[in-house]
């Protein structure tokens, strides 16, 4: 059976199966969720290992460097009258995200064992959410792409709304509403763009769309719309404020998925749809993105410095790190874009680890304020050690995947030579800022004297409790020491994209040089095509 179909079907089937399990059979519910996500993880790992040797099912732009292979393809008719097919396939970029999602959901299911409230509904929503996420990463049909995109957002609303928590810093209802409204607004914006693409090409087939040559004016009109729609999810400054608040009130596993995967949906959409379909517009607009992402990096970091709530610190830090992802994309260089996708992976794992650890002690302390904590290393050496490791990874310590990817992004930004290297320099300074807030969090929460009331906090002791944390740390270290397999795989998906953007830039230059007198010519052919249909 097709592995991608399995990746989709297994969590979907598990979601359905959970409906028929008695709500009190908590063990059974947890087992089903664990086995299902574990199976998906195994499939994802096998796909990752076999990716290089797998045959291409479809190839877009079958010429030279921009040839773009989609592997593990699967296709079946859905609504033939509308030309709707259920079509799955991944390139290296997509598979990196599938692997990331599989790792995080497996860890997320395991760290959620301590949830006792409405266990059944919780796991149903979690699995539905992850089905949607997988769907976005593997769909090659615009309709299903959007369908799954929305499917990923809705369960989030309930998960935070029901299982979340209100703290001194953030009101749960407010955070939930804001998150859903902003995400939906972004999604609707993207939808408008996707519909315009569909009406222009006349097909939902994303492989066909990728080959379609959109006119420059069409690209210039619709790139910003689609881009902003996805950028709200990244989250790009200044559309980011839903994200830290959402983290702060979400339960641990939801925060993990939210920061680990959901944010990546936005960046993935930018790459897969906006940049890939509109390379000429990307070449024009992306340099301005580089300016905005500096705000992400520096501003996000500065706001993180002034937070005292651990989840808000990590929330703003995520927004800051996603700035590096955007910087890598904006650099439009091969190494920078590869670094960006690699960083999406690395940051996902790292931030999931951090949120899982915060969730671990929050369940016991019911506070995340740095002023209330301290000295927890004494009672939680395991959690503390891993928190230091995760913070170091986040601060860009070599040996972790984050370092390799962030440095690739910085190298790419330097190579791109945009804006007098100021964004690259700010990105390097961002590493210093990251150090400031993370080391402060580490020191205030884990070092120093332990307050009397935390004497009885419990560390992770059993194998099942420790496993998800160890697994995530292991992945960070594995790809930190040996990044090449991931980079090679990502390159398979990113290289055609960079080639196309380069071609787009060349076309733009030519257009300026030759077509100066007939400036209106390309503007006319967009409506003309529309009328023909």
């Amino acid at each position, binding site marked *: 059976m097709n592995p991608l179909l399995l990746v989709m079907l297994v969590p979907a089937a598990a979601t359905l199966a959970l409906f028929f399990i008695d709500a009190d059979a908590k063990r059974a519910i947890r087992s089903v969720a664990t086995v299902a996500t574990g199976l998906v993880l195994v499939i994802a790992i096998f796909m990752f290992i076999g990716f290089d040797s797998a045959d291409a099912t479809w190839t877009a732009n079958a010429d030279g460097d921009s040839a773009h292979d989609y592997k593990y393809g699967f296709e079946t008719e859905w609504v033939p009258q509308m030309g709707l097919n259920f079509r799955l396939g991944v390139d290296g970029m997509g598979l990196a995200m599938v692997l990331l999602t599989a790792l995080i959901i497996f860890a997320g299911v395991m760290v959620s064992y301590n949830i006792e409230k409405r266990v059944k509904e919780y796991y149903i929503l979690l699995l539905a959410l992850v089905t949607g996420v997988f769907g976005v990463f593997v769909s090659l049909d615009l309709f299903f792409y959007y369908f799954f995109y929305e499917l990923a957002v809705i369960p989030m609303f309930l998960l935070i709304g029901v299982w979340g928590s209100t703290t001194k810093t953030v009101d749960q209802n407010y955070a939930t509403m804001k998150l859903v409204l902003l995400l939906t607004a972004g999604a609707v914006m993207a939808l408008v763009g996707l519909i315009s693409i569909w009406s222009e090409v006349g097909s939902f087939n994303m492989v066909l769309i990728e080959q379609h040559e959109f006119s420059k004016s069409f690209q210039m009109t619709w790139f910003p719309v689609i881009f902003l729609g996805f950028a709200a999810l990244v989250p790009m400054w200044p559309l980011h404020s839903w994200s830290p608040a959402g983290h702060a009130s979400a339960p641990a596993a939801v925060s993990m998925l939210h920061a680990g995967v959901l944010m990546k949906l936005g960046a993935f959409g930018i790459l897969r749809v906006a940049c890939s379909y509109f390379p000429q517009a990307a070449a024009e607009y992306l340099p301005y993105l580089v300016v905005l992402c500096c705000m992400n990096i520096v501003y996000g970091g*500065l706001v993180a410095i002034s937070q005292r709530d651990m989840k808000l610190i990590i929330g703003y830090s995520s927004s800051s790190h996603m700035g590096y992802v955007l910087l890598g994309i904006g650099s439009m260089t*091969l190494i920078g874009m590869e670094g960006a996708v690699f960083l999406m992976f690395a940051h996902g794992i790292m931030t999931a680890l951090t949120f899982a650890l915060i969730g671990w002690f929050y369940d016991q302390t019911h506070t995340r304020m740095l002023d209330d904590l301290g000295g927890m290393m004494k009672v939680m050496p395991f959690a503390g050690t891993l928190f230091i490791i995760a913070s170091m990874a986040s601060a860009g310590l070599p*040996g972790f995947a984050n370092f390799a990817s962030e440095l690739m992004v910085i190298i790419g930004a*330097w190579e791109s030579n945009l804006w007098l290297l100021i964004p690259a320099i700010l990105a390097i300074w961002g590493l210093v800022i990251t150090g400031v807030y993370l080391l402060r969090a580490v020191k205030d929460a884990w070092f*120093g*004297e332990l307050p009397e009331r935390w004497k009885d906090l419990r560390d992770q002791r059993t194998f099942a409790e420790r496993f998800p944390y160890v697994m995530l740390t292991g992945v960070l270290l594995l790809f930190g020491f040996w990044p090449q397999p991931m*980079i090679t795989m990502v390159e398979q998906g990113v290289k055609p994209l960079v080639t196309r953007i380069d071609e787009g830039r060349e076309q733009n230059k030519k257009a300026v040089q030759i077509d100066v007198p007939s400036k209106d010519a390309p503007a006319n052919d967009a409506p003309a095509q529309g009328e023909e249909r």
Partner: protein
Amino acid sequence: MDLGLMPVLASGGDIITEGFASWAAWIILFAPLLVAFLVACVPAIRKNVNLAAGLAIASVALGLVLTLFVYFFPTLGHHNQIYELIVPWVSVDGSVAIAFGTRMDALSITMTLVVTGVGLAIFVYALGYMKGDPSMGRFFGKFALFVFSMLGIVVSPNFFQTFIFWELVGASSYLLIGYYWKKDSAGQAAKKAFMTNRVGDFGFLMGILMIWAAVGALTNDTISQGVTSLMAAHSAFDFRVIEQAIGEVHFTGLFEGGVAAAAIAAALVFCGAMGKSAQFPLHVWLPDAMEGPTPVSALMHAATMVAAGIYMVIRCNFLFYGAEWAPTLICWIGGITAFIAASMAITQNDIKKVLAYSTLSQLGYMTMALGAGAYTGAMFHLTTHAFFKALLFLCAGSVIHGCHHEQDMTKMGGLRAKMPSTYKTWIIGTIALTALAPIAGWWSKDEILGATLDTHQVWGSGFLLFIGIVVAAMTAFYMWRATYMTFAGSYRGDHPAHESPKVMTIPLWVLAIFSIFIGFLGIPEITAFGVKDANFMEWWLHHRHKGAAATMHNWLAVGATVIAWIGMLVARAIYRESEGKDPLPEKLGRIWTTWNRLYYIDDLYLWLVQVVQQGIARTAWFFERWILIQGVINNASQSVRVAGDRVRRVQTGRLGSYVTSFLLGAAVIGLLVLLQVGMSHAAGGK
């Protein structure tokens, strides 16, 4: 004849890429990491203190033995051999973007010997010093990790790998300084060390990228095939690639901005060294780092971390030689550091703090040598300093251990009789450091002063020479001050002091013996006695330029020695019978206060962090909280709600109003339709 102006070459000579010698360095490098990993992951090893310590010691000993027998002794015969094994680490688009590997040439062999040799003595010593600490296994694991990080810098063949291990040294030092994590001050010091280094790395990474971009842009049109193929194999970060490229096209062909850009790049790279080697103005972390256990101080502040910056500059000296104002900057920063640190040392009462500031001051000397272009001299002083400073730190540790964790010298005294081994070795170390007699520091310091006298590439070198001599006197003063306060007079502590166990004193004696003899590796040309060609250090590192030998400036050597003796005698007069009382604060008044407050630099930084940085962060948060979230987002949603309220009022439920609005709407639509029809008629009519 220029003294030491010939670059210490990273390349040239025979390159051996096969056989055991090519990859033995990988064993040297990774053995400590393996130990650290085992200690971290296998609880059985972590909890068995002796096993963990034994493994850590074995890994360092293995490194020392391998370096000696695979690299050092075989290379003595044909010393221009280079052993390397470099593999791609990250390849992008089929070409090597970042390479990883080891390169063992004379320079890295020397440094590996220093790190593993001094390291081994400290590891053994730590076995005694840390006895009774419940988490000693963890300590040795972190210790091994630290040695791994440092060795990575030493054997690194390229800038990127250097940066990787540069960061790792920063992180492992963070762990070691914060070892006593229950103490708030330890946590603060660890954070401060890490962040100060990060600031230095900010410049370092920019410098690396600047050079990488320039070298990577070179093509076959401008440079030879040899360089481009080397670049394809080892990436543009590689030291040999950069050196050969500079050799072929010079700074003018490498950078668009020519030599001026080269000076900026060199200065940025030097920023990294300023962080790690604790040069002014990034020196503030080093004294605080004394919060770690004493063996950690000995390891970090003698042979490893602080040496990394000096070593890195020597490694890529080709960037600095002739780079306009960069050497002047380096030399001045070295001179300033040497002076301010020496003056701070005079005012300290904590025995470890005295040594910490002394380390700073000696690093200043080394940096001065770097600026003056005396790379061999810097390396020589680094080597000798590693031995005698490790010795002094370990002696201090022995004293602290013997006095029941008392570090304040005013509460010591009279230890001469109580701790004879510690006393004797301390005296040897102090003589080596203060250059009273021709052992260790006497030779290397003299070479640096001579280089400062000879150099032509530094503006104001005469003044720096003067500073160097003044600092020599100050060094003698503060070291002998510490000696008399600690060992002379009568014991002033509360608990009875005792000599340390053998496991601690034996490493002391080993280091003491080295401190006596290590200086003879660098005997310069002394015309007065007809000594020539005795300079092993120079021959070993300068093998291709054997003609250029360091010459002793007789009057300078004599003068510096006399001045050091004066400093020592002044200290003797003041402190020999002072019984821990220090008359200096009254005599020097405001100057003493300034020195004791460290020139208010730490206060300034504290203000910068607490007021400026926090202020900016609070401003950002204010903007986020009140303008972005409250002002834009909440108001936007509020306006939607208000609009909804208004619209809701239309749904009145009264039939009359519905009919009215229906008719109104119908009329508007009808009008629009009419308009449309009319317009299309008009268009069609044309």
